[in-house]
């Protein structure tokens, strides 16, 4: 069935993939792909109003909307038009057998007048509600807990200077709400009230979106190889998944900031089941036993790519005066020895991550991770327009969602599905592809290059404001 899907006007790239992932989560494999989209007539692709066809019945639509973060509401569309007269005609034409069951005398209802890009005064709102007399509402009004919620939503040609996507023509929608996002999660989980956070803790909204892309749910095991303070696993655990994490920095996973402020306490704070396992390990030399594979249902992570925090791996060597040749740790110092580490380039890190995921994910399992992208000289999306993302023969890329972090660079959330089993043959092909990828992208992925591209001072003065197009979409 087709629905009107209204999004929050934020994280534009993330909106459709989230709905598709949730359809897959609630309706089984293949459902995500069967989701269809259309834009209402005359609407810009960034408009919050989308038409979506979801598999299954209304229950699925409600589940998708209620679990999502970016869906303001999914509605059964009763009518739409460019004027209130057209709306009336359209609603009258909508079949009675679809309408009457929700208008019965024993039910309660509420009408909400909403708008996008314009303000409707409460007097006008009242007038709009009064004008709906052509809909035979028989039930009683209940503003607090109505059985059915009806929405009148209006968007208008509001000029072009307010940073919103342009609207060619005024549109009015009337629909019955089927489900809506529960964004109350966000104040509960916001980082500023979390006990233990680090400089690169994932913000709560993004972590939930990642958990949704990873199809986190009860009975599934989610792994984060760069767990840090556990901010991604907290989101996965909220959705009922079992979690496991590793980090190379033992101070972060073991000690935190004391006995009441560490990764465990973050789970305790939200009354979530604690991770099944936390360990200190190097993603470059994973300590998994031989033969172990297909262990995790999802790997969700934010790898260190050297802009805010650089990656480290085993193998550095302390240079000690007078010592020549390979350093050996003296036996008496072995117990509390802190091994030195070497820089871990993005290319190597991503390669290890894909390798790990190919081996350790179940078939159909998901790898969800952020990947940095440099933006063109003019601040536009030259690289994003023709993106070159890492590939692996075991994986199919199903979503890439850009989040712009600065004028210079973005991060793209990649969602990949494991479509082929891991074999030695596949691993050989993967090595080849990786070498090719590395040759083409070596320069900017090398240690420090990304960091300097993001932070080096600009060559010329600030870009001319006049030259900026009026609606820049996500490219603000």
């Amino acid at each position, binding site marked *: 069935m087709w629905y009107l899907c209204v999004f929050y006007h934020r994280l534009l790239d993330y909106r459709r993939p989230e709905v598709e992932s949730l359809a897959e989560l609630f309706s089984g494999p293949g459902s995500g792909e069967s989701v269809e989209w259309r834009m209402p007539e005359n609407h810009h692709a960034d408009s919050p109003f989308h038409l979506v066809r979801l598999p299954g019945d209304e229950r699925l639509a409600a589940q998708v909307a209620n679990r999502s973060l970016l869906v303001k509401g999914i509605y059964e569309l009763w009518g739409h038009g460019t004027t209130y007269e057209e709306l009336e005609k359209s609603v009258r034409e909508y079949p009675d057998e679809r309408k009457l069951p929700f208008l019965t005398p024993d039910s309660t209802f509420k009408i909400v007048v909403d708008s996008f890009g314009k303000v409707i005064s409460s007097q006008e709102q009242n007038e709009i509600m009064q004008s709906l007399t052509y809909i035979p509402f028989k039930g009683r009004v209940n503003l607090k807990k109505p059985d059915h919620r009806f929405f009148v939503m209006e968007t208008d040609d509001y000029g072009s200077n307010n940073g919103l996507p342009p609207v060619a023509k005024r549109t009015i929608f009337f629909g019955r709400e089927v489900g809506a996002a529960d964004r109350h999660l966000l104040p509960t989980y916001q980082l500023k009230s979390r006990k233990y956070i680090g400089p690169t803790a994932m913000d709560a909204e993004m972590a939930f979106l990642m958990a949704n892309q990873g199809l986190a749910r009860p*009975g*599934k095991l989610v792994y984060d190889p760069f767990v840090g303070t556990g901010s991604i696993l907290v989101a996965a655990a909220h959705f009922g998944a079992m979690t496991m994490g590793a980090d190379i920095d*033992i101070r972060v996973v073991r000690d935190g900031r004391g006995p009441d402020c560490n990764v465990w306490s973050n789970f305790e704070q939200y009354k979530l089941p604690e991770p099944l396992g936390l*360990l200190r390990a190097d993603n470059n*030399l994973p300590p998994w036993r*031989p033969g172990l594979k297909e262990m995790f249902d999802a790997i969700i992570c934010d790898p260190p790519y050297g802009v805010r925090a650089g990656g480290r791996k085993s193998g550095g060597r302390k240079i000690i005066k007078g010592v020549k040749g390979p350093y050996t740790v003296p036996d008496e110092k072995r117990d509390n020895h802190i091994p030195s580490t070497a820089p871990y380039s993005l290319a190597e890190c991503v390669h290890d991550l894909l390798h790990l995921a190919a081996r350790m994910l179940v078939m159909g399992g998901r790898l969800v991770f952020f990947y940095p992208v440099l933006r063109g000289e003019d601040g536009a999306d030259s690289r994003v327009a023709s993106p070159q993302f890492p590939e692996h023969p075991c994986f199919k890329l199903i979503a890439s969602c850009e989040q712009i972090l600065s004028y210079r660079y973005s991060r793209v959330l990649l969602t990949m599905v494991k479509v082929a089993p891991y074999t030695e043959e596949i691993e050989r092909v993967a090595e080849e592809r990786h070498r090719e990828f590395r040759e083409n992208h070596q320069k900017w992925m090398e240690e420090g290059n990304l960091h300097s591209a993001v932070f080096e001072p600009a060559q010329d003065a600030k870009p001319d404001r006049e030259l900026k197009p009026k609606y820049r979409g996500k490219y603000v």
Partner: protein
Amino acid sequence: MRLLTHNMLASNVRGATTGYPLKLEAAKWVTKEVDLNADFIRGLLPKIDWRALVAATRALGLPELLPEEQPPEEEIFAEGAADVEGSAIRRIHHALLEIHVQEGSLVCPDTSRCFPIDKGIPNMMLHEDEV
């Protein structure tokens, strides 16, 4: 560190052939209740190395917890077994997920390299001369 994690880990120290199974030496361990999810156990069980799991429970001084051989799946996942005190699925769940080793070490069977477990976190990092 839960025994599930122990079951997944191996030593990748230079010179180790398989580095598995790691010998568990627990100085301190506790039990923490975890909600039983039969589907989760069902998905997990085929990936568990039963012998290593049994060895780990014995190392903790729990010889009675698990039998030498893995019980047949139809017994483990029998209808209602999850609600029966002491049933196979309960014991497996308990062994894998509820036993939490706080302090101790994991010893590589090939090289005797000792990986410390401190505050519940196994430290699998290698020293620079072991990579």
